[in-house]
């Protein structure tokens, strides 16, 4: 698996954390409460092995928001949360104490989750794109629920997966999730190249 040097690891984590900071600020304005998002860990995996790397979640029941991106860097970004928790969060945020179906998300709630996912994924991508100077476009979010095999899929099985562990704190509840970037090996190489370029640009 791709191994980053300590410095590269540190840089990528820091860049994404800054991005997530603005996502948290945006969410906080929306839900009118304190929100914080931190990314304590990043790692790499292959699509096949992804289950082993998502330790904080029950991979059989996940809620996901997925956005494709293309341009100088291309791939898919997927936000993964626990299926049960997500419903809880959304209902709490929408100040709805009563759902119609306790087990299903209505379209309304799916859309709300898509928006939250969109904000978080855009923040991560923008941070990477702006700081590392990539020209990328992202597409609209798509919501899907189910088993990890259904959610993290790709036609190209050789794709590498960059995994970010995400801790989202909302109204004193902590929700653990992951942001997973599916990219091919060329994209990963480019990413690392740009990280090095950035590090070298810091005068020493």
């Amino acid at each position, binding site marked *: 698996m791709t191994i980053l040097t300590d*410095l590269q690891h540190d840089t990528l984590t*820091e860049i994404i954390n800054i991005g997530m*900071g*603005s996502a948290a600020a945006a969410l906080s304005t929306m839900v009118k409460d*304190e929100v914080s998002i931190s990314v304590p860990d990043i790692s790499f995996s292959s699509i096949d092995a992804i289950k082993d790397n998502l330790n904080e979640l029950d991979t059989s029941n996940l809620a996901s928001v997925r956005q494709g991106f293309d341009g100088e860097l291309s791939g898919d970004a997927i936000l993964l949360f626990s299926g049960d928790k997500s419903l809880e969060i959304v209902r709490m945020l929408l100040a709805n104490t009563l759902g119609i179906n306790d087990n299903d998300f209505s379209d309304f709630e799916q859309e709300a989750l898509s928006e939250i996912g969109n904000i978080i994924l855009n923040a991560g991508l923008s941070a990477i794109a702006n700081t590392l100077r990539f020209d990328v476009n992202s597409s609209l979010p798509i919501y899907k629920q189910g088993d990890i095999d259904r959610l993290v899929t790709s036609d190209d099985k050789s794709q590498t997966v960059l995994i970010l562990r995400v801790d989202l704190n909302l109204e004193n509840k902590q929700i653990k999730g992951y942001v997973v970037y599916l990219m091919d090996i060329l994209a990963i190489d480019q990413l690392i190249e740009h990280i090095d370029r950035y590090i070298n640009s*810091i*005068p020493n």
Partner: protein
Amino acid sequence: MSTKSVLIVDDSRVSRMMVSAIINNMYTDWTITEAASGDEAITVLSELKPDIAIIDFNMPGIDGLQLAEKIKQQSPNTAITLLTANVQDSIQAKAATLGVSFAGKPITEEKIVSIIS
């Protein structure tokens, strides 16, 4: 401006590098000390009372605000600035009550300039 001492506290090495580089560029004679966590910073404080402290909010262990309180106790003359990616009213407010300045990440030259003047 006379020579000053600066303490930079951030768990991100790159972040420390950036702040350090910007300050060095402007004031080559200033002393810069780095700490990677709140605990490390407290150890440094037992020896050094810096003129300026620039601390990250989101760190493992004690967070930036808790550290700021400690610095205020141990080294009341230090001008403290909290740097954070998470610019929310609640954090800003808490910083203000402590008498701590506030700046949002990402770090730019202008921001550092306004912090140290």
